[in-house]
């Protein structure tokens, strides 16, 4: 897919991983300009990259929210987009990962609150990743695959597409939403009954 970012200034907050690397490469290829450092009033799009593998420390969702809100205040005059990269577990807790479930659910609630506070100037959305792998697991837990109707992990390329969708200037009425990229993992009992 192609989108037209027309020189949009893009900032990144949070961890790097192979999804983020591929996202920034795709944003550049579609006309975006990635800048180092904290978001400024010149920032058009902020990517908030959260840890995607259970067991890795997400950090305090309250400070993550505070940082994103500070960026939103800076971006308000020009308007823009904030896209959170989180785990699909935000909408479907897993027994084996209580802390990771809580942290992601908290980030999701904060994302929605930002969408309400900063609309209509800033659109705020999240992509919730299920199992994504390249050479190794990038997102999620392999156990999720037993409930994934399409029966396979997602690719980095498939993960990137949803982020581009939320950055697309033509996608202009979607805010406060998490779009799962999980092969149907969160849709219901996809196992064997």
């Amino acid at each position, binding site marked *: *897919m*192609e*989108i037209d970012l027309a020189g949009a200034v893009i900032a990144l907050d949070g961890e790097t991983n192979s999804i983020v690397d591929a996202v920034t490469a795709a944003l550049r290829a579609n006309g975006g300009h990635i800048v180092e450092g904290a978001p400024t009033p010149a920032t058009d799009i902020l990517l908030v990259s959260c840890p995607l593998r259970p067991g890795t420390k997400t950090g305090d969702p309250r400070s993550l929210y505070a940082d994103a809100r500070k960026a939103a205040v800076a971006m308000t005059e020009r308007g823009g987009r904030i896209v959170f990269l989180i785990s699909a577990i935000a909408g479907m807790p897993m027994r084996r990962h209580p802390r990771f479930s809580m942290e992601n659910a908290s980030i999701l609630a904060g994302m*929605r*609150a930002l*969408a*309400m506070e*900063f*609309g*209509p100037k800033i*659109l705020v959305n999240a992509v919730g990743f*299920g199992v994504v792998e390249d050479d190794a697991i990038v997102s999620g837990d392999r156990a999720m695959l037993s409930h*994934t*109707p*399409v*029966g396979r992990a*997602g*690719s980095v390329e*498939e*993960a990137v*597409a*949803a982020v*581009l*969708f939320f950055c*697309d200037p*033509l*996608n*202009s*009425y*979607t*805010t*406060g*939403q998490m*779009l*799962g*990229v*999980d*092969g*149907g993992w*969160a*849709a*219901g*009992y*996809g196992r064997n009954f």
Partner: protein
Amino acid sequence: MRCDLSDRVALVTGAAGAIGSAIAKRLSDNGAAVVVADIDKEGAERVAAGLRNAMACALDIRDGQSVDAAIARVCDRYGRLDILVNNAGVNTLAHRVTIDEFPPEEWDRITGIDLDGLYIMSRAALAPMLAAGKGGRIVNIASVVGLAAMRLQSPFVAAKAAIVHLTRSMAIELGAKGILTNAIAPGSVLTALTAKLFYGDDGKFAGRTQEFLAHVPLGRPAQPEEIAEAVLFLASPAASYINGQVLAVDGGWTAGYMM
């Protein structure tokens, strides 16, 4: 976004209407052959005439024979069907009343089109998709009222909530066969119907439009093209790991309470 749908055939129901015609155009502009399906034959022909590679198709989604005949015509013309957009739907304009006063015949009309029709259409469209064994996409057009209930339109609310959950059911049934099912839940969209309710000067609830829009972070209704953009993404090759999702395209209406 731009994508390559040049080898795909898409069928859009309710495609003579505002949202349906916008969806048909976005798919067509990205290369798909589009079946413009509607109970309004002349409307379908008018929309199809404005597209690059399209056929008009008169059908009544409540009628299995009508739908089967339409799918047969599509297969005759194109030999395949890759994308189904279940967009056709109705709501009530005259009967904005609570459930105890809601006329049974109007309940049946609305649920018969919005829910039963979606089942009848999907069942028929799945036949060529499954037979070809190449997967496919189904995009159901639900509504925010299927996620957050609203008053004075109980059959529409019930049918759209059913579509939300049916989407998930279809996703877990069909995902292993390569057919991905998702839904868009539009918020308020500027159409001829909503003009009669909210956005026209003589709309039924015209005096309360700003009060209503105060619940929507973007503070305005959607244009049909903004709904179509999300449908295009879910129908595109890029969305190949998205299944069972219900994406609200609602200006943030269902993000939370604006209080």
